[in-house]
Each structure stands twice: as structure tokens, then as C-alpha cells.
């Protein structure tokens, strides 16, 4: 066991590199997913059929065909058409499209739950189409979206473990290397899973902070500063970590 720990300590820089790759995949995928989600989410609820139709089809397609298949399709098949993406790009694009499609449903649902009166008041004040979405609808929709987006973000992090299978040296790769070096499956996989858990936990904390921020902007619940104070004001505890 102490040998194991020594081996782990020796490999800390490589662990850092692996975590970095995992984070790059996750953050890159999440950013792309958010763009895709907003575009397809709003696209899915426009009145114009030639926008709504394709948006729905794309959403259902990427939700329906399995992340693993999409990733390897991009990895193996795309080069046949003459587009060779770097492995990292393949990972980010696959994660971004897949979770973007799920996110589109979140966006659509949350935007639909913003009360109708808010749209009507925006019309009555003659706010422009984009202006009302940016200043009135989205600020309210965010508060509803964040918990669900937080779940998707954790799913995306978990999906990023596929990177190892397209020859990226991510955290998953590090685990297998550690296992080779220590010949101790339980030790190396426990370490690896704990690191994944810590990352997921930190991401969840970040998303919770975002949620508090958006809620307090709506005048509901305490501000982020109040929550993070050393002696926090008692707030109703949120159920569940994710």
C-alpha cells in the first residue's frame, strides 16, 4: 500500500495532466453544448416551420443515437469524408452535440415555463425580439434551468471518460496507467473514481452557486454573498447534491 502511494505521488504531475484533459473535454463540451442547446431550444419553439422542424429533428437525432456511437462515428467515419479532427476536437464535438440536444429540451422547457404574462408585458413595452429574450426571459429561465443543466454537466463529465478510447490521455487513461504501475486494481481505480467524484462535486458546487445567484436576482432566496458568508444565515437546505 505504501508502495502504491509512493507510485501515485511520483505520478502526480501526470495525474494533473490527465485531469486537465478531462476538464478541457468537459468544459469545452459544456460550452459547445450550451450554444447548441440555446440555438436548438429556441429553434424548437419558433413559429416558423423551417426553423422548428430541423431543430426538432436534430434534437431527436442526437438524443436518440447514443453518445458512444456518435463519438466513434466522428472518430472513424468523418476522416472518410476528408475531415480529420484532432481527438480532442472529436471528443468536444461529440459531447457538445449529444448533451446540447438534451440541453435544448431543458432550454425549451424552462423558457416555456416563464409565465406568459412576461412575454405579454415585453410586447406591451415594445421590447424587440432579442432584447426581450436577453433581458426578460432568459434571466428568469436560467433560475429554472440551472439545476437540470447541472445534472447534464455531471453526465457530460462522466461521458468524457470515453476520451481514453480515442487515444487521449485523460483521467481514465491515468487510472489504467496507475494500475499497470502498481498492479493494484482496487487502489488505482479507487483513486481514479475519487478524483472524478471530487471534480463532479466541485462542478456541482459551482452550479449551485450559479443557481443561488440567478435566484437572488429574481428576489427569491439569499444572495450568493449571504450564502458564502462565514456564519451563513440559515437557509432551507437544498435536497440532493446533484
Amino acid at each position, binding site marked *: 500500500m505504501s508502495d502504491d502511494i509512493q507510485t501515485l505521488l511520483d505520478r502526480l504531475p501526470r495525474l494533473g495532466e490527465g485531469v486537465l484533459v478531462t476538464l478541457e473535454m468537459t468544459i469545452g463540451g459544456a460550452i459547445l453544448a450550451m450554444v447548441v442547446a440555446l440555438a436548438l431550444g429556441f429553434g424548437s419553439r419558433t413559429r416558423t416551420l423551417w426553423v422548428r422542424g430541423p431543430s426538432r429533428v436534430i434534437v*431527436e*437525432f442526437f*438524443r*436518440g*443515437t*447514443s*453518445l*458512444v*456511437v*456518435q463519438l*466513434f*462515428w466522428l472518430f*472513424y*467515419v468523418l476522416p*472518410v*469524408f476528408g475531415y480529420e479532427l484532432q481527438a480532442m476536437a472529436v471528443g468536444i464535438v461529440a459531447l457538445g452535440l449529444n448533451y446540447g440536444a438534451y440541453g435544448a429540451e431543458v432550454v425549451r422547457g424552462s423558457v416555456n415555463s416563464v409565465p406568459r404574462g412576461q412575454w405579454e408585458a415585453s410586447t406591451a413595452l415594445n421590447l424587440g425580439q432579442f432584447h426581450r429574450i436577453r433581458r426578460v426571459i432568459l434571466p428568469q429561465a436560467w433560475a429554472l434551468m440551472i439545476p437540470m443543466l447541472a445534472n447534464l454537466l*455531471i453526465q457530460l*463529465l*462522466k*461521458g*468524457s*471518460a*470515453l476520451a481514453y*478510447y480515442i487515444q487521449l490521455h485523460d483521467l*481514465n487513461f491515468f*487510472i*489504467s496507467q496507475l*494500475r499497470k504501475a502498481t498492479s493494484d*486494481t*482496487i487502489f488505482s*481505480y479507487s483513486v*481514479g*473514481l475519487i478524483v*472524478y*467524484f471530487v471534480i*463532479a*462535486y466541485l462542478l*456541482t458546487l459551482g452550479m449551485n452557486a450559479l443557481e443561488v445567484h440567478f435566484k437572488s436576482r429574481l428576489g427569491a432566496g439569499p444572495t450568493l454573498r449571504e450564502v458564502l458568508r462565514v456564519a451563513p444565515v440559515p437557509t432551507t437546505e437544498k435536497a*440532493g*447534491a*446533484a
Partner: protein
Amino acid sequence: MNDSIWDWDTAWDVLPDLLEGLKITVIATVVGMVIAAILGLIIALVRRSGSRFITVPVRFVVDFIRMTPLLVQLVFAALLLVPALPPLAVGCGVLGIHYATYMSEVYRAGIDAVPKGQWEAATALNLPRGRTWVAVVLPQAIRNTLPGLGNYAISMFKETPFLFAIFVVEMFAAAQRYGANSFSYIEPLTMVGLLFLAVSYPTSLLVRRMEKRLA
């Protein structure tokens, strides 16, 4: 070699392999979901009724499993268990446990959604606690959980390709194996994607209909 990108002969050639793989995929989903449904209910009940000494560790384990990659869990379990157990069994078990952590949340929400008046009525009738659960609360709660169960079944179905990592030849692994042997990935991988869509999309429409009907 032919010059068109898509080759129908290859497509026909790989189809039987894929359908064979689809069988494994469906088996893994069904067995995994049965485990998830039962274990998830047990977790939900334990978390609800146990003392803090039980609920806190259970909650930690549940969060740990839920927040770490299924893929890594699969490989971990296979490395420990595979000579002793067939890979498919390990795969079903890990899928089932992983999804049980999701399902426990679904059950919890379903139980919470049973109106307080139902508990009060059961108390007023002096029903014993066990009877209240079995005859009053759970039948209503499980009705609430059916759409969630359906959605997670679809989601598990689409995650079975992770089993390729532990050498279970389900549909995706069959395609990949074919591709590796023949150096033509486009037909097998495209067809696997479409087969997933062909199963999961109609199923998800059914679940949505069920959601609407139960709402």
C-alpha cells in the same frame, strides 16, 4: 474496393452481426433495469426510514456512484470479477447499480408526491405502518414513477455501448469489431446509430404519451 463511400453489400453483410448484438443490448437493458428498479426502491426506502447512521453513508455511496463515470465503474468491476463471472453479468450488474442511484431519486420524488392526506387517512383508519406503505403509498408512488422508469430505461439502452469496454459484444461492439476487421467503419457505425434511433425514438414517444396520460 469501390469508389462510393457507402457500400450496400457491406451494410447487408454486417446487419446479422448487429441484430445479434441488438439482442445482447436488449438483454442488458432489461436485466439492468430490473436490478435498477428493485435496488432503487430499496435505496429510497432505506434513505427515508433509516436512522442518520444509515442514511448518511447510503447517501454518500449513492452520490459517489451517481457522480462517477459508468465507464470507469464497468472496467473496475470487470477487472475484479470477470474470470469468476461472465462479462455480460458484470455489465448488467454495474448498469443496474448505477441506474439504481438514479431510480432512487425517482422513487423518492414519487413517494413525496403522494398527498399528505393519504398518510393521514391511513392513520385515521389505524392501518399498521407496513400496510400503509404496501397498500396505500407505494401503489400511488410507483404510478408516479413509471415515466421516470421509462426514461431511464431508454437512457440505459443508449448507454449499453459502454459495455464494449469490458468485451461484451453488444450492438456497438459488434459494429466496431466488424469495422476493425474490414476497415470499413461507415456502414456498421452508421447503422448502429440508426438502429439505436429506431428503437429509442418510438419508445420515448410511448413514454411521453404515458407521461401525459399520468399527469
